[in-house]
């Protein structure tokens, strides 16, 4: 591959999205899908912490006055309620927690500033839902010049086809899709992870 057409991940951060009580408990399908993914996430978080790779948990927070979709008859993730909290397995309080109010993790948050402060040039994405929050945080990060990696085994959606489509979209437009195992292996072997430089047509 042509040298000036690739760039290499130098410093990574892992960003989880919406791993909160209300969002997971919306439906039996979601509970099931998250349960399937959770061991990978927990293992990956542990590996990252061992390697001092920064972890940021995105927390969706709504207010009483927000016009949002009701979950089970009420506003989900309401400030100050139990439902807004992270599931305990991810031990979020060991890491950076960042509130957000919309889909993209960059939208009116200080995620960009935080990543720059950490010196990160590459974002690893995990959590749910693949087809909105992950996808849009990926696009938004890409627009801001970050290398984007969707961590395949740490991402889920209520429906497998939505996840599949979202990962295809990410690899087609703005990033790479890799497993947590591959990422850790590359990191430990000092193998650079390469990204094509996409010129906007």
């Amino acid at each position, binding site marked *: 591959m042509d040298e000036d057409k690739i760039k290499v991940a130098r410093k990574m951060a892992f960003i989880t999205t919406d791993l909160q009580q209300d969002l997971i408990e919306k439906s039996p399908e979601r509970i099931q899908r998250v349960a399937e993914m959770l061991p990978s996430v927990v293992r990956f978080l542990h590996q990252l912490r061992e390697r001092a790779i920064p972890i940021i948990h995105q927390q969706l927070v709504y207010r009483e006055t927000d016009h949002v979709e009701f979950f089970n008859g009420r506003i989900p993730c309401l400030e100050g309620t139990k439902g807004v909290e992270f599931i305990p397995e991810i031990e979020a309080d060991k890491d950076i927690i960042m509130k957000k109010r919309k*889909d993209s993790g*960059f939208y009116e948050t200080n995620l960009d500033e935080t990543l720059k402060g950490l010196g990160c040039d590459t974002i690893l994405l995990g959590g749910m839902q693949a*087809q909105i929050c992950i996808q*849009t945080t990926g*696009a*938004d*990060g890409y*627009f801001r010049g970050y290398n984007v990696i969707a961590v395949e085994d740490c991402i889920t959606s209520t429906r497998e086809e939505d996840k599949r489509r979202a990962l295809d979209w990410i690899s087609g437009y703005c990033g790479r899709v890799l497993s947590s195992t591959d990422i850790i292996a590359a990191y430990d072997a000092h193998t650079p992870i390469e990204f094509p430089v996409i010129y906007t047509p």
Partner: protein
Amino acid sequence: MNYVIAEDAAATEAVILDHGTGARLSRELVEMIAAELGPIYIGEMEDSAILSLSGERLAITTDSFVVQPAFFGNGDIGKIAVCGTVNDIAVSGAIPRYLTLGLILEAGFPMPSLRRVIRSIRAAAEEAGVKIVAGDTKVVGKGAADQIFINTTGIGEFRRPPLRMKDVRPGDQIILSGQIGNHAIHLLSIREGLGFEQRVASDCAPLNGLVDTALASVPQGMIRSIRDVTRGGLCAVMHEYARATNCPMEVRRSDVPVMWETTMGADMLGLDVIHLANEGCAALFVDPDHAQAVLAALHLHPYGKDAAIIGSVGQPGSEGFHLTQKDGSVVEVEELLGAEIPRLC
């Protein structure tokens, strides 16, 4: 006696959101209203009605604006309210001259926001060279409106013959004056916080200058008709012309100007850019021997730098919108029934 008809009739057919999207259900609603109005309705279902008033011909059009969000990255509902009506007048071939301005404000709408809207109206009207000749402001209770609604009615005068859909002929070239989809992706992105709003700005702009430029570039009659591509997107406009001319509209997708990020955003949301709303884009139907001249003129105008010939009017006998895909296959694109709703979480 019961004054509250709504309650009695609650179980019957009701207006639904899809009636307002510019697609088929909208048209049916408009047709019902026109039929109910009967002989007092003398509009021709064109965006501008042409009046003979003491021998002078005027163009007049009206539009209400209920934009949500009312404020966005590079504009607001005030700018849209001026541009939308100016563009409706301009594409009829008339010179936009006057606007009226009707505001409906929700109690609690902040005064600074109102000032900002009014300033946008002023700026857009100055750019378009139109004067606002009458105004009206109503305030409704909190919850009885969504922040601010704006009606603008525009009056233009004809110094050249009106442009009409029926003058479009088989073989005419179809030119888009700019990229499509940006306005819709920008607004959807703000509403949902998708990230694209930083890269994709609304195209909202007054197009009368661009229309003047185009019309001046070729002999009279060579530009047959112009339509601003708004709600319902390119698809709605193509179907409108197909119905009016009884000819198919044949468009090559690879020639349709679209920003890469807009395609990306639309793809993420499961939308097709040909259905997306615009606020500063026009479709021009041009005699084939003069299409290149019009295109060259458009390229010199700031709002026309991305203009492209995207297809042509087919032979009469079959209506419809035929889209040649990037792989060479031709698909017949149906008109949408209502709004295309983005797939969200």
